[in-house]
């Protein structure tokens, strides 16, 4: 595996387009190579031909062998999906985040996107590759940089060695590879970055100091979710603040996470109610006397106790009001952070420090810097013109000269001088008025980024001449002088017949959809790899079964890998959520506890018969990392799968919602000791996003007598 990993890593630099001709204009100091194009799609090294030959190996028989889907059923599905490539048809793929919970998660999403591109279903109303998020505001979280590797608005986090804005923009902004590519994001990268810095460090950020670019952190190591606990296990983490995230329950590998929390000096848990993390020191099997971690529980408000916005998967930012006042000593998360920041700032001011400037220079333009209102923050995110004092109305007007601010460029236009547009509610009460196109866009319901556009890449909803692919389902269309319909993802008056017209995918350097991507660390074209724990060798290439670059945290840290093999753990398991509960917080809600009161696993009827297990029996499910002891639910919905030709494999389903905290755990203290589903899951991540492999791992199951 190490050899394969090396080959991959060395190969990365060769993943790119063949280039030709004179370089294209680019930002100062960069040359932009022109990608070779073959509009006939016949060149054997064209992306299309490469895709075709790559995927010719995935015959219906091979797909059946890998997944267990019967060949006939696969063909039925493939026929239906294939027909969605006709202009008068359109198909969407909606995936829950489960699709990301694999060591090949990023590639799984990408393979859906590639399929939709090939079918012509990108940019069309009713098309796309759409994520259903696990919480009402994960989209908003992501947009505002909850992930360690981005700044707000999907600008990259600067990297060590980038000494100036020039270095940063050159390394981060997409480069134009076609003369007809607008490369809007790449072209505006500096405008967006400077406006962000100007928002954060108003008076201090000037042309003479590169707009305080040197204030930004340039992390040298991966700082994603699992990396935090990996660092704590290595003893390199002093403390952790968990805001609305219960590490113990979320996992993966709960026992190891609790070990990591035990290694900390201090742990702050910000949550409305006790969590398995705030109480980890008294988890069953833990010895509080041996844990030196000082735990602080800061009770926060729940989202029903504050206003603010929820951003859905369609990118609509919808403002909401506070429903009930906070109870007891609960404070808003952002007020806790503001207070903490104020105290840190005071300490820096009083006692100095290595690098106090970024802390002391931070703009806090709020009525009460210790209690900023969410509306004030939303207004700040929108940004303003510092010359006129007006709120910005379009990110196209953001400048790199320090005269504009934008806390998150994609939200520019959401909170203008006209007010908070996220509050708008012109909906189905009057479709004739509120949905003028009849396409369900409802442009004055809330506000969607970017620019209140409802369908991204909607230039692709019309053909080369600007005519909708399907007259019944127009996205935008060219009326001879302007684009009408949805807010165009294209210059509003650009004539599509003009030879200089931009290509449709304006955010990419290519100007076209990325059938080939050099930004994925595990390959430019998605390939199937088995999970790290798999019941069969990969039918495509048994000698390289799993993803060669999946990140094996334990191994990388010098700890032994704890992966199980099929001889001891013969069944595959998938963890998932139920509609009755929201992650772990609803364990405190009695009526929801009544709907799904206790931890259980689902298992196939045939396996249950083999093992003498009936619905309601207590069972123990084990993996190489831990165990759970829960009730069994026998069902025919989980059939055995036939993989790799003739291997029968049983599948165990594991709902995740329970632990040793909550109404039910308190009512059943003896039963609830081993209810944490993530005690079973492997501590391994996708190479890019480092998402844990929650959806496929190996277990054993036995009845508890």
């Amino acid at each position, binding site marked *: 595996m190490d050899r394969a990993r090396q080959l991959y890593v060395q190969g990365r630099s060769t993943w790119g387009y063949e280039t030709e001709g004179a370089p294209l204009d680019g930002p100062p100091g960069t040359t932009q190579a022109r990608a070779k194009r073959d509009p006939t799609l016949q060149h054997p090294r064209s992306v299309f031909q490469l895709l075709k030959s790559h995927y010719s190996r995935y015959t219906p028989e091979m797909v059946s062998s890998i997944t267990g889907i019967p060949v006939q*059923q696969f063909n039925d599905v493939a026929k239906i999906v294939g027909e969605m490539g006709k202009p008068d048809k359109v198909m969407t793929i909606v995936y829950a985040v489960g699709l990301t919970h694999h060591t090949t998660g990023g590639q799984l999403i990408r393979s859906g996107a590639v399929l939709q591109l090939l079918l012509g279903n990108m940019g069309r109303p009713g098309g796309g590759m759409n994520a259903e998020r696990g919480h009402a505001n994960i989209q908003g979280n992501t947009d505002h940089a909850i992930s360690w590797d981005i700044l707000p608005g999907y600008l990259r986090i600067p990297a060590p060695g980038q000494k100036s804005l020039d270095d940063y923009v050159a390394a981060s902004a997409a480069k134009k590879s076609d003369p007809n590519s607008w490369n809007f994001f790449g072209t505006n990268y500096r405008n967006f970055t400077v406006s962000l810095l100007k928002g954060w460090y108003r008076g201090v950020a000037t042309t003479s100091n590169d707009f305080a670019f040197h204030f930004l952190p340039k992390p040298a190591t991966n700082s994603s979710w699992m990396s935090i606990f990996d660092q704590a296990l290595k003893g390199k983490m002093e403390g952790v603040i968990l805001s609305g995230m219960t590490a113990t329950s979320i996992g993966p590998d709960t026992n190891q996470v609790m070990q990591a929390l035990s290694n900390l000096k201090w742990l702050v848990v910000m949550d409305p109610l006790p969590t398995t993390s705030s109480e980890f020191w008294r988890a069953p099997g833990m010895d509080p006397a041996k844990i030196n971690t000082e735990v602080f529980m800061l009770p926060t408000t729940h989202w029903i106790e504050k206003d603010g916005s929820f951003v859905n998967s369609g990118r609509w930012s919808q403002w909401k009001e506070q429903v009930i006042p906070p109870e007891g000593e609960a404070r808003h998360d952002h007020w806790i952070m503001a207070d903490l920041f104020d105290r840190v700032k005071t300490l820096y001011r009083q006692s100095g420090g290595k690098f106090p400037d970024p802390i002391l220079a931070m703009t806090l333009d709020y009525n009460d810097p210790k209690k900023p209102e969410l509306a004030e923050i939303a207004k700040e995110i929108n940004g303003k013109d510092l010359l006129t004092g007006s709120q910005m109305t379009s990110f196209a007007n953001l400048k790199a000269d320090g005269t504009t601010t934008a806390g998150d460029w994609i939200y520019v236009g959401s909170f203008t001088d006209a007010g908070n547009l996220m509050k708008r509610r012109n909906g189905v009460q009057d479709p004739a008025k509120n949905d003028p196109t009849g396409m369900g866009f409802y442009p004055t319901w809330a506000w969607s980024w970017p620019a209140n556009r409802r369908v991204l890449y909607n230039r692709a909803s019309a053909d080369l001449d600007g005519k909708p692919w399907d007259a019944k389902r127009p996205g935008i269309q060219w009326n001879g002088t302007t684009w009408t319909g949805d807010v165009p993802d294209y210059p509003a008056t650009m004539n599509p017949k003009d030879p200089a017209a931009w290509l449709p995918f304006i955010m990419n350097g290519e100007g076209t959809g990325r059938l080939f991507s050099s930004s994925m660390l595990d390959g430019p074209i998605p390939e199937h790899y088995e999970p790290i724990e798999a019941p069969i060798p990969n039918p495509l290439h048994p000698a390289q079964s799993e993803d060669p670059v999946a990140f094996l945290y334990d191994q990388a840290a010098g700890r032994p890998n704890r992966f199980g093999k099929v001889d001891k753990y013969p069944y595959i398991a998938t963890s998932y959520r139920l509609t009755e509960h929201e992650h772990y917080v609803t364990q405190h809600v*009695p*009526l929801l506890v009544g709907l799904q009161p206790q931890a259980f696993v689902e298992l196939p009827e045939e396996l249950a018969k083999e093992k003498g297990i009936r619905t309601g029996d207590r069972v123990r499910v084990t993996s190489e990392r831990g165990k759970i002891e829960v009730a069994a639910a026998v069902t025919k919905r989980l059939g055995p799968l036939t993989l790799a030709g003739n291997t029968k494999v049983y599948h165990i389903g594991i709902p995740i919602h329970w632990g040793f905290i909550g109404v039910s755990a308190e009512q059943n203290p003896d039963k609830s000791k081993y209810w944490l589903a993530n005690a079973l899951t492997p501590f391994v991540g996708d190479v890019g996003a480092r998402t844990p492999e929650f959806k496929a791992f190996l277990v054993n199951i036995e009845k508890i007598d």
Partner: protein
Amino acid sequence: MAAFQERPVGFFTDTSICIGCKACEVACKEWNQLEGNKPELLLDSFDNTGQLDAQNWRHVQFIEQIPDNNGVVMNPTPIAGGQAWLMMSDVCKHCQNASCLEVCPTNAIVRTEYDSVFIQQDVCNGCRDCISACPYGVIGFNEKTGTAHKCTLCYDRLQNGLQPACAKACPTESIKFGYLDDLQAAADKRLAALQTAGYKKAQLYGRDAKVYGGLNAFFLLMDEPEVYKLPSAQNATLPSRNNLAGYAGGFVTAVVGLVAGVLAFRSQRMNEKTDATR
């Protein structure tokens, strides 16, 4: 808000789009201040509520119809051919011929201006006659209040122009509230669309007078009523108005039962004999 007009209202529960989230159960309890029974792990598929009673005025049934083909659904229309995970939010039917109302000795159970069937808590004497009379097992007895309880069709909300809590909470609009004639028209349209799409077993239950004179809370089902533990139209009539058929049915059942009993006894004896010879 203004109250609804004083004409028949009801529920049209379209089970074809129920996702089994049980939001209706919770919304009902929240509005009507029902604390719920003590949580119990039933695992009847995903149902842990069990039945309609004094604490549960909406109840989502889960019916697993999975044939023995390794769990793989071969039919591309998954709820067409008896291969499905059926979900149905059950509720008081607010029958036109409501047996609970007819047996109530104190006239506690009345028909409201909205044509719903309502138990007046201050008149109920707790005799429980309605509980045994209800053919759907809808009504339950509350030991604390000493009275019978069931869905009120959110009578208090209707009087204030608010639709019932369950319909309001239903994320897929599987539970639709409205004036009965509008709901019936919507149901006819939905049924026709499903049948055109190939869902041959889809049917309306209680939409017309065949079931207890018509149900103000009627359903679109994806299979026969018995699959959802509902009496079929043949059985859904009040005994007092259908004595002959009732007696005849009873007689036939008795004969069938007797014959089956004899056969069962005989086959058991034969098994015993086989065992003895082994």
